[in-house]
């Protein structure tokens, strides 16, 4: 008979759940996870990782198309979408196996099935409608994640109107696409399909693409996407979808006009809703707002002994935010000293489109709205030797400082490899450096990171190379 009593049970094994379970085990707690489908959750199986595999293909393909710029002649460049998808799936499978190993290594018990709150301190596990196990734990962490939001009239059907799930495993390459929503998910798919040659239209209800990013970065990214041939419509809504046998006609409305666009497929990327159904929240004091669970700074819900982390709670909906919440939640349960609530201004966000976009902290506008007098630094890729050598002369690094204290309030980048650069500013923010320490830091030459230095210098009127 398997063990049924634990210190901590985590429901869901995405990047929030499995990290929380492992941390609990590290701290000497008897820990278990309940997973209904894939270890590693959406991130690893249907999100962050497989899309990065797809985007890598797009990047290589783009580079090869421009091989002659680098003095290389390649003839007959082509791709096989089935093999592209196969690779992406292989990558996900490899990491999925990795999570299983990590859980085993840390002696975390894994239950296969749907976990549900079943009275105070109890979790019922069901598989295919049958009860599999009755578990007990002092602390129960809900890490059930989220799924694509649907809009009335635009409901995904899996064939013509896709969510990220179908968009990740196309059987055939669509010739044309409408992407509804220009957040990170929408823009990454738009970028992927555009690179592989599809005609891509993007409809965004707000007035700019990547609306959480800094205005200037949004504008630069949009310019780059349009240059690649994307058709972008902001302040635009999708009024209706007419589904034919193998195409969809969408009615768009924006700027006082209404028009139709006919495309092979539609990708819906208009946000996410928390996976609350079947969690057994009924009859508990767990509070839900706008399809997400309400928690305090230590990830506690309204129900004693029940916690929630990751996408099932509030934004930002990012894998690394979920992991960090899992750590905070567990360390607080363990009574560790020096645990700090999550500061969302220190969570970097990355979009792996071409060009990439990455940011951390406040946008210039948000900083001003919060009453900061700001100093803003900007440095363009065209002023950086490495960027030129890479053949990536487009992009910008922008920094926002508090004029009085020199606090780095935010950093915003668009251009090649910026997703790998942003963490420099992330560390700076967590260590609470001011502009002085950043100026005193020596950045290696020649690297793209030199732009991070120059941007800081520029905020104080001292940029050297532009």
């Amino acid at each position: 008979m398997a063990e049924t009593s634990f210190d901590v049970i985590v429901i869901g094994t995405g990047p929030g759940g499995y990290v929380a379970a492992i941390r609990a085990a590290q701290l000497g707690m008897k820990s278990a996870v309940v997973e209904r489908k894939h270890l590693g959750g959406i991130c690893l199986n249907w999100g962050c990782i497989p899309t990065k595999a797809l985007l890598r293909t797009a990047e290589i393909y783009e580079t090869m198309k421009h091989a002659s710029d680098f003095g290389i002649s390649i003839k007959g460049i082509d791709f096989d979408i089935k093999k592209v998808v196969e690779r992406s799936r292989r990558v996900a499978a490899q990491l999925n196996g990795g999570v299983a190993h990590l859980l085993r290594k840390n002696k975390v018990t894994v239950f296969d099935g749907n976990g549900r709150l079943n009275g105070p301190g109890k979790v019922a596990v069901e598989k295919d409608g049958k009860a599999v196990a009755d578990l007990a734990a002092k602390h129960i962490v809900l890490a059930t994640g989220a799924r694509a939001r649907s809009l009335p009239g635009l409901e995904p059907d899996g064939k013509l109107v896709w969510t990220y799930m179908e968009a990740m495993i196309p059987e055939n390459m669509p010739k044309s696409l409408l992407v509804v929503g220009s957040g990170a998910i929408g823009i990454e798919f738009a970028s992927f399909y555009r690179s592989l040659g599809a005609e891509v239209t993007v409809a965004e209800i707000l007035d700019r693409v990547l609306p959480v990013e800094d205005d200037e970065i949004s504008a630069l990214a949009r310019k780059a996407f349009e240059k690649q041939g994307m058709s972008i419509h902001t302040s635009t809504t999708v009024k209706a979808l007419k589904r034919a046998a193998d195409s969809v006609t969408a009615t768009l409305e924006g700027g006082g006009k209404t028009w139709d666009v006919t495309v092979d497929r539609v990708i819906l990327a208009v946000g996410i809703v928390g996976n609350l159904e079947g969690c057994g929240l009924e009859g508990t004091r767990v509070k839900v707002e706008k399809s997400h669970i309400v928690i305090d700074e230590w990830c506690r819900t309204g129900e004693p002994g029940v916690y929630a982390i990751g996408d099932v709670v509030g934004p930002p909906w990012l894998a690394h935010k979920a992991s960090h919440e899992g750590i905070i939640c567990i360390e607080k349960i363990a009574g560790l000293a020096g645990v700090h609530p999550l500061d969302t201004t220190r969570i970097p966000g990355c979009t792996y489109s071409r060009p990439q976009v990455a940011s951390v902290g406040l946008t210039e506008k948000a900083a001003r709205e919060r009453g900061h007098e700001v100093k803003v630094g900007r440095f363009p890729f065209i002023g950086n030797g490495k960027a030129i050598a890479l053949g990536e002369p487009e992009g910008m690094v922008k920094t926002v400082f508090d004029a009085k204290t020199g606090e780095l309030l935010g950093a915003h980048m668009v251009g090649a490899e910026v997703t790998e650069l942003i963490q420099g500013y992330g560390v700076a923010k967590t260590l609470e450096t001011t502009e002085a320490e950043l100026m005193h830091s020596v950045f290696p030459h020649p690297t793209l990171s030199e732009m991070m230095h120059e941007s800081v210098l520029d905020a104080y009127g001292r940029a050297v190379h532009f």
Partner: protein
Amino acid sequence: MPIQILMPALSPTMTEGKLAKWLKNEGDPVQSGDVLAEIETDKATMEVEAVDEGVLGKILVAEGTEGVAVNAPIALLLEEGEASSTLEVATPAQPPAVAPPGPASTAAPRPLVSAPAAAAQVPAAKSSGERIFASPLAKRMASQAGLDLTQISGSGPHGRIVKADIEAAITAGVGQAAAAAAQPVAAPNAPAALAEPGAAFIEVPNSTVRKVIAQRLSASKREIPHYYLTIDCNLDALLELREKLNGRAPSGDKSYKLSVNDFVVRAVALALRAYPGANSSWTDEAIRLYQTVDVCVAVAAPNGLITPVVRGADNKGLVAISNEVRALAKRAREGKLMPEEYQGGGFTISNLGMFGIREFAAIINPPQSCLLSVGAAEKRPIVKDGALAVATMMSCTLSADHRSVDGAKGAEFLDVFKKLIEDPLTMLL
């Protein structure tokens, strides 16, 4: 008991120095003769060697600390088998009050743990002597709000004070009581914070050497009644002789290449032997006439002027002088002169000829009475036998202390010097 390592006196006049760098870390084994640290004295950087063997138990004076008094304990050495727990007992209960001239506000002795104190930075030491860990942002915010970091507890990793703690302190009014004490600190020690708006500048902190130059030369110009005598010397004969001598230089390690300056050093040395009045120092009780002819040669080292000494120059030939000056100048530029190589001397030569300076009047190098400023050797029209002619001329200016060397005596010295330069064969006698 652990052995106390004391701040050494690297020269007879040294009272304090800067602990420039530790070359051993706490816990490193130490052999007798190992270099433990580098000390920056008033003139040069010196190495501190270990006398005893053991393990460097504790560093008491952080590197970069200025004004460390001679004989102050700077570190503790554990002998073989000695436990590190003995360090606590051994740490002096009353650390000498030689803390860096940072923004210390209290009169209480402070341990020597603080890093070089940057202007407008809050003291990095709690009253109990612990170092305070605070984020750069927290430090700046505390400084701007006039908060005393010692009054604030940190919530960051290992008790580090972070922005949130400062915000909380401002809200709660913690640390404000100490602000009165902290404020006068910021004022006199933080000129940068008080700068006039508008003019942009950067501040280069004064090195020990720079401070010594400032102090000594200000005192010299303030206290010594300088007067200046300039004389022109015809170098034609000297240059001819120089060419002949250099033409006979053997190859290999006996090789030499005489410069005009080598002749000047030799001429000064011989003139001083003939005229010892210029080889002197003024004191209130007496004029001190030196019995040896030790000539200083000013060298522009990267961190400031230094004057290595050619001792017994009147007994040294041109080649010996040439080689010695060259070696001294090289070591001076590398900051490697030993104290005995730059201390003392009765007369100084400063040569700016290589920069094309025609003539100049340098400040006397105290406590000496005289200094010779040597200008460039250049072709000039002269009157020779009632007709215009061209000769290579060099102007030399003697700066002299009127208290010990009267004008006429200075002129006599210059006359002897000029004769030697213009008739250089007499220099070889």
